[in-house]
């Protein structure tokens, strides 16, 4: 007689207790549906620019199919170092302070695992990207949620941080421009948070994957702030700015001892990032600026359209200043964010992501990605408008705003 293994019992409780993803069920819902318009996609609607794909095809023809060094191609690290120092005036030594990772995703995992001891606390703003808290847990730490809300533009402030500090606080996670809210963070807020980090000897993990997608004001790189280079792990990648999500390549930059520690884990669990992706990333940095700017100009134009559409529909929406998400407040419909998303999908075949998938603080909101064609966006908003009108039983809802739409964006929508 063979004993049947009870896998549920075998699974590490830390893994078992991670809540299932809030978006899984939508896959089942959409399988039998046709003609849906999805605003639920958190990745560019562009295919990777051709010159990048072409460079990578050539590398395959030439037989670049081997491992690279654990750190990644030196040429790529040099190019990243140049790019970061050119954009933010922070310099990293390509030989010891930069590690090529399998996307920011791996960078987050490595940073947490290399830093956390059991019980260490990680401050995670909410709403935020879905992997921060689970990775903190898997790294043995304890995520502590910091609530940000629409009335302060979903920005983290030193006040909020200070209230959450305990002797076990070790890491502050920052992710601006933000997924799912589209918020950016003001330099002044960052300066205050930086001061706290210095005073309490905290490490900042800064996920700046949307840095180039900043439409109002300028992005501040956390490690460029006074005294922060030494206590910041800068994570970035190619997924969003160069439309390279499927390639799986990114990087971590920081203190050389810490990069060495991350590299220790990386060398055993990953060995190296795929060489093909590294070659593509190199081409992106060397020759991809103009194509990147064109894509960003497109997002920037759509952003205005989206904000305008919500005004028209009558859903309050704080002005998103970065990434490619809008995060309207749907409470006036009387629905929870999950109900809103499910019923909108069933009735109007438009897919949005319930805000609750990004933490409790996202309840009452939905995430609409505008990484979609203008044509699809217009049709989607027509349908959302119909839905909201039916639910509110009103012609047009009197709109109130969380702050005014900034007329003056940084004009990156211009390509000429």
């Amino acid at each position, binding site marked *: 007689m063979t004993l049947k293994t009870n896998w549920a019992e075998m699974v590490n409780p830390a893994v078992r207790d991670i809540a299932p993803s809030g978006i899984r069920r*939508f896959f089942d819902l959409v399988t039998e549906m046709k003609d*849906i318009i999805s605003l639920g996609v958190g990745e560019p*609607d562009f295919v990777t620019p051709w010159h990048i794909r072409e460079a990578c095809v050539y590398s395959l023809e030439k037989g670049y199919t081997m491992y690279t060094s654990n750190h990644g191609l030196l040429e790529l690290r040099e190019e990243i170092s140049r790019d970061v120092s050119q954009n933010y005036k922070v310099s990293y030594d390509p030989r010891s302070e930069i590690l090529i990772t399998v996307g920011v995703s791996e960078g987050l995992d490595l940073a947490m695992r290399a830093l956390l001891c059991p019980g260490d606390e990680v401050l995670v703003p909410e709403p935020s990207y879905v992997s921060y808290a689970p990775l903190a847990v898997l790294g043995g730490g304890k995520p502590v949620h910091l609530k940000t809300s629409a009335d302060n533009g979903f920005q983290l402030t030193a006040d909020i941080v200070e209230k959450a500090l305990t002797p076990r606080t070790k890491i502050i996670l920052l992710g601006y421009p933000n997924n799912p809210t589209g918020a950016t963070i003001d330099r002044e807020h960052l300066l205050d948070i930086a001061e706290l980090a210095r005073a309490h000897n905290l490490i900042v993990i800064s996920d700046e994957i949307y840095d180039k997608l900043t439409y109002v004001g300028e992005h501040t790189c956390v490690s460029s702030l006074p005294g922060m280079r030494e206590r910041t792990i800068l994570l970035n990648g190619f997924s969003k700015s160069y439309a390279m999500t499927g390639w799986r390549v990114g990087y971590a930059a920081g203190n050389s001892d810490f990069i060495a520690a991350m590299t220790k884990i990386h060398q055993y669990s990953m060995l190296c990032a795929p060489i093909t992706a590294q070659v593509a990333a190199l081409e992106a940095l060397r020759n991809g600026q103009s194509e990147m700017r064109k894509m960003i100009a497109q997002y920037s134009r759509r952003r205005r359209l989206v904000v305008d559409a919500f005004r028209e529909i009558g859903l309050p929406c704080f002005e998103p200043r970065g990434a490619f998400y809008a995060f309207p407040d749907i409470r006036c419909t009387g629905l929870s964010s999950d109900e809103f998303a499910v019923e909108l999908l069933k009735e109007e075949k438009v897919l949005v992501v319930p805000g609750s998938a990004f933490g409790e603080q996202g309840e009452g909101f939905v995430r609409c990605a505008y990484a979609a064609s203008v044509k699809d966006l217009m049709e989607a908003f027509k349908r959302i408008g119909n839905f909201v009108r039916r639910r509110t039983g009103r012609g047009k809802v009197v709109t109130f705003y969380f702050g005014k739409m900034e007329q003056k964006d940084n004009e990156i929508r211009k390509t000429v």
Partner: protein
Amino acid sequence: MKEILELLETDARLTPGQIAAILGKNEEEVAGIIKDLERKNIINGYFTLINWDKLGAEKVSALIEVKISPQRDVGFDAVAERIYRFPEVRSVRLMSGAYDLVVMIEGGTMKEIAHFVSFKLASMEYVLSTATHFVLKTYKHHGTIVEDGEDDRRQVIVP
């Protein structure tokens, strides 16, 4: 203004209202600018790109290199005009290099094009010689790939 042109160049069907929303301007202002651009002939027209091949339509087109001797006083322009006035001529451009004009022509059949070249074009005053190249297949026109297989392949929902 340049932004309005850029937007219309990629999608001529955008309405002034939509353009206004994208650019954060008001609708009347945008409509006024467009009117003005049309009046000044900066906007030359609005077209639909059609893949006639797909319809199985027998539409032959050809690219013709034309060498001419420029006319005193008016240079190449007068000869070019005599050519571009023919409705079957789709485009005429003055070129640097081995020949002077490049003429794109779209006719019903090969025979019609041959007829046009020999009876109208080659025999025209100041035209020294022509070389006709028939188009076998169009892959990309007006910046648009004819059969682009790269549709949206993303998963419908991604965190």
